[in-house]
Structure formats: structure tokens, C-alpha cells
């Protein structure tokens, strides 16, 4: 579970669209998100705290996706295997009318990274979208990764990283698409209506079902402190390396948390009273076996959340 930083009180006047059609994308130049408009309710900038400002009238672009660098792209199919892409004008929030390039495939839930020569797409069988598939710019499939959730959108998070958002299921995956590995797989507190990745500050911003915003930091909140492991097993006159892993509610590692260690028994010694979890959520310490007398003692390991 990600760490909740902010709960907004302002209620956004949501357009009359289903959540799946909402098109909520972060725009790095604005340091705010774009929310699709309707004829009755123009497109708006949504700020983290829920402040909403209409910036144009009636923009109704449904065919948009994410672009590396924290921008948007509009797509239009010309023919089979030919898609025109239109650049985003960040001041006005409009799309250029002349395409800046053509690619072999670009549909809903896509991310374009021209530098990497990739189009990432959340797709699947039928209506599902649980497969992250990478294509080259000509539309040839390069690789696929399968997940357990259907993603609502794929958004640029940072160079080489995509955020896969399944706000309905309350799931967020941060995926390193250059090395093909998930950097973070976690959950948000409760299902949201729609969500985007704040590429300015590396946060998850969501509009909840009641129209308020919430902001999460991509630090999983600890849910489980695992079993302490001794290497080698503890013994008199011998040192043992201690490791313990801290994980969140879906088993994701929790880096950067302080683990407190203490011994009850007054026989052996610990190298340090607390240590911090690393990127794998593992905290390390050393235990030195008793010099004088052997016997049982208790090692207590705690995390303050």
C-alpha cells in the first residue's frame, strides 16, 4: 500500500463521462493534470489539491495517450498499421493539427517514447488490458509482460519508466521498460475513479469516486516484517549476520524504513540498535554470540509506522 500524503476537500465537478473515458493525464509543463472536457463542461487543469480550472471550451479529445517527457499525444488512425500522432501545445492545451510523426500502432492506453523507439500499450484478450506490450515505432511487437490487473492507462513517469495505473482495482505498477522489470507494484488505499502519475514530483494523484483528490507517495507502507534470518546460526564466540525484510500489503518491499533491534537476555550483543531497509526492503545487522555463558535470549525487531 502506498503512503497517503494528502486528502483533498475540494470536490471536482466531474464531466458526464464514465471513469474509463475520463482521460486524466499529468502534464509536466503545467505541474497539473489534464481532465478531458465535454461540450457542456470544458477541459480542465486539475491541481493536486483538487483545484480545477477550465482552460478551454468543450475539448473532447478521447484519442489521447502519454508521451515521454510528461506530455500528451493525440492519435488518429489513417489506415491499417498507420497512425498519425499530433503534438500537444502546453500553453493552450490543444493538439497541433499537423501530425509530427506516424507510427505503426497507437491506441488507447499507450505511451510513446521516441528516444527509446517504443510504444508501450496496455492490452489483453477481449476487453482486458492486463498485458503490457512493447512495440517498435513500426508496430512490431518486441515483448510482453502480463499482470494481474487491467490497467486504465499507461503514463510516462520518469526516463525509462512507465506508470501502469489500475485505479478501479486500486493498483499501481511502476515499470522500468528499458530493463523490463517492475520497480514498484503496490496498492492505493481504496479504489479510485481515475488516476495519473505526477511526473514532476513522482507521486500518484487520483480522483476518488466522490470527486475529491488524493495524493500518494510511491513508498509502500509496511504491513509485514518477515522472519529474521541468522547467517550462520547464532553460537557462542561467533558473529552472525542478521537480515529481515519489510514488505507492504501486496508483498512489495518497503525501502527506507528504520528497523529497531533489541536483545532481551543480556548475553550476546548487537552491532547497532537500528538499521534502515534497503531497496529490497531488507534491514541488516550483526549479532555477536555471548563470550561468557551460552543460553537462550530473545531478539526483538520492530518498525514504527
Amino acid at each position, binding site marked *: 500500500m502506498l*503512503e497517503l*500524503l*494528502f486528502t*483533498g476537500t475540494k470536490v471536482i465537478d466531474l464531466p458526464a463521462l464514465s471513469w474509463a473515458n475520463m482521460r486524466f493525464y499529468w502534464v509536466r*509543463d*503545467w*505541474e*497539473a493534470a489534464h481532465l478531458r472536457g465535454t461540450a457542456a463542461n*470544458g*477541459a*480542465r*487543469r486539475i*491541481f*493536486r*489539491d483538487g*483545484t480545477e*480550472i*477550465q*482552460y*478551454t*471550451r*468543450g*475539448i473532447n479529445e478521447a484519442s489521447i495517450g502519454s508521451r515521454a517527457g510528461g506530455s500528451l499525444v493525440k492519435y488518429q488512425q489513417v489506415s491499417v498499421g498507420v497512425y498519425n500522432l499530433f503534438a500537444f*501545445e502546453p*500553453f*493552450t492545451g*490543444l*493538439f*497541433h*493539427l*499537423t501530425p509530427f510523426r506516424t507510427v505503426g500502432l497507437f491506441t488507447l492506453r499507450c505511451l510513446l517514447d521516441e528516444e527509446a523507439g517504443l510504444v508501450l500499450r496496455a492490452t489483453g484478450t477481449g476487453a482486458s488490458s492486463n498485458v503490457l506490450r512493447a512495440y517498435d515505432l513500426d508496430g512490431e511487437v518486441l515483448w510482453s509482460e502480463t499482470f494481474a490487473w487491467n490497467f486504465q492507462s499507461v503514463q510516462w513517469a520518469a526516463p525509462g519508466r512507465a506508470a501502469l495505473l489500475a485505479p478501479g482495482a486500486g493498483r499501481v505498477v511502476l515499470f522500468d521498460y528499458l530493463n523490463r522489470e517492475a520497480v514498484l507494484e503496490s496498492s492505493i488505499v481504496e479504489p479510485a475513479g481515475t488516476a495519473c502519475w505526477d511526473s*514532476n*514530483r513522482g*507521486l500518484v494523484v487520483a480522483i476518488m469516486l466522490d470527486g475529491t483528490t488524493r*495524493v500518494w*507517495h510511491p*513508498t509502500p507502507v509496511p504491513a509485514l516484517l518477515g522472519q529474521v534470518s541468522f547467517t550462520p546460526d547464532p553460537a557462542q564466540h561467533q558473529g552472525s549476520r542478521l537480515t529481515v525484510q519489510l514488505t507492504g500489503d501486496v508483498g512489495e518491499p518497503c525501502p527506507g524504513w528504520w528497523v529497531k533491534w533489541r536483545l532481551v537476555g543480556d548475553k550476546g550483543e548487537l552491532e547497532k540498535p537500528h538499521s534502515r531497509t534497503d531497496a529490497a526492503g531488507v534491514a541488516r545487522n550483526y549479532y555477536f554470540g555471548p563470550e561468557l555463558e551460552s543460553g537462550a535470549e530473545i531478539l526483538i525487531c520492530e518498525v514504527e509506522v
Partner: protein
Amino acid sequence: MALWPLHSVSPCMTYEHCSDPWPYTAPFGLTFNHNLCEPPREYAVTLSETYSGARYGNSFFYLPRLDRYLLFHVSHARWINWEMGRWSFNGEGVEDKTYRGGVSLFFFGTLKFQRRSNVEVGSYGKVYGVDHWIKQMGEVSASNLSIVTDGWHLDYRQIPGMPAGVVSGLVYITHCIVNREDGYLVLRVANENRLRVWKWTGGGVMGQDPEQFEYFGDLPISSGQVHDLAYEDRRHLWVVTEGGYLIKINYQRLRVEVFSRIADPDPEDLAYYLAWDQRRGRLGLLRHKPDAENGACRCTLEFYRPVPKMEALTEPVPIEPLRAGQRIPFVWQVTGDAGEGISGCLTKPELVEPATGRLRTAAVVTGRSGEALGEYQAATPATETLQVTAEIKDSG
């Protein structure tokens, strides 16, 4: 009100009263439009509701050599045709000279005007427009919009890259901005939400050979109707659109530099007309509002300094996990009412008393997106309230 409003004149025009006795008959047997002069309406003039999205429209611009804002409009005053009127306002927006086309211009002036696109001032302080009748684009007279015979002009149909609809005459050019000094031609075509730009490739000052132009590119400007354009200088122009959105464009680089909004846009506003005052460096905006019940003018002339003004301040949001002992950065943003970030705005965070933590930032000036970042540090776990204020300086 995201641009700085300076002052406004409301109403900015005084319509001529209907003459007595009713029904009044003008020379040559023409009569006043009953829709104007019939009680309770008592004025013989009104602005037509044709803004520049149409084939022809009202034109509003600032003429530097006269130091005057000029409005040319179509009036439905007399049956069976329309007539042209010209209104003049001084630099402070006070109406100082009104000219109605009258009978002498009844046919000729009206026809001339209806053939014209919305005309605009361009380079050298001259006025340029498009004549749909003779398919010419060129310099027009600021007194009656007739083509200046020895002025710059060309056949726009022969410009390479001109949309086919314009060439065939099915689609009209509604605006043209001409910068002859640097060789840029900016056109807006009816029902298009983009500006199209051509570059003169013939060297020197822009000449009259249409084949020497090269298509330079286009720029999206609105998702709604474009109401008017205004030439600022050799690089910039302004656009006002439906909803009162104002966009400053660098047409030599095809990029938007300012995005903002007029003060208090009202759904009942019929149209907005824009002019750039080259002497005072400010925008003049004519807001066309519906006439009053008795037909009196309700239009306003408003002046803006072209600097975005703060309109909203977001709440501070932490961007790192809240931990006692750690410095926690918070972000807040200052925006105008079109959502644009306001940079250079002084903001001050403060903790609401009683507070146990401390702020590590006294004051922050907002950055490019209107964002500001401050730090807070709590010694012990606590619940505290952080609030931010922003200082609005006079526009100067």
C-alpha cells in the same frame, strides 16, 4: 481576470437616436430598420452580431499614427441594405469621432465592406485585409477600408500551400496579419481553429509575388470560435477566442508565449475584439454585449496590461512522507484563471499557532509553472496546519 485589467469604459459608444417623427424616411426613400427604431427601441444604430468567424465582420484595431482605436462595423440601420460605420476612440477609450457610412456609401461602402475580411494593422503601421471579391490581399485604407491602389497587394490564391477551399472561393480568409519587414504572413481561415503562417522567401521586404511564399507551419489556437486577432509587433500577435481566452503567439517561432483570460467573461457576451496599443504597450478589448432593452449600447472597451494576474492559490501538498525529524517539502501553486502558472509571485508559508514544528522556508517566489516549494520540520509527531499566502503587487 488573469491579465491585469487597467480600466474600462462602459458603455463605450453612444448610438444615434432615431429621428422624429416616426417612421423616419431617409433620402432616396430608405427607411430605418423597424427592429431598431420601433418602440421600446429608440436608437438607429446597433453593432451587427458578425464576429470574425464569418466571411466578413466587425474590425477593431489600433492605428499608431492616429493614436486611435478604430472600429468598423456593419449596421442594420436602414432597409433595404446595411451600411458601414466607423467609430474612433482615443487612447483612453473615449469615443471621439463617429462616422456613419450614410447614403453616400450606401452601396459602395457596404459592398466594399462585405467583401473584406476582418482587417488588422500590420507592419509599418498599415492596415491589411482580404478582398474576397477580387481575391486580393493587401493594404487597405484606414478611413473606409478600400484597397490602396498603389499599396502592397497580391493574389492570395497563388500562394503555395493555400487551402483548396480558399483557392476555390468556398472558404474565406477571416483574418490576415502581415509583417512585411520580416516576411511573415499569418492567416486564419473560416471555421479553422489554427493559424497558418507563410514565410517570404524572395529576400528583403515582402514583395507582391505570391509564388515566393513558403508554407511555414500552423499552430492550434482554440477549441472554440476565434473572435479576433491583433498584431503586436514583428514577432507577436494576440488572439481572443470564445470564452474570453487570450493567447499571445510568437508567429516567427510558432509558439504560444502567454495564455490567459479576460476579466469576467460573461456567457451573454456576443464577441470580443482585440487591438494592441503600440504606444502604451497594452491590449484594448472591445466587448460586444447585447443592447439594452431600449436599444442603448452596452459594449465596453477594456484595457489590459499584458501580464498574467494571479487568481488562484492551491493548498500546500506534501511531496514526501511525513516523518517527525525530517524536512518535509510542500508544494503549492499560483495560477491565473485560465489555469496558467504565474511565475515570479512572492508566496509565504506559515504555521497556524499553536505549532510545535518549524518552517524551514520563509518566503518563496513561484517558478515557471507557478509552483513554489517550502520545507517544514516537526520535532515530534504532531498535527499542524500549514497555510500559504501570496502577495499581489500592483501591475505598475
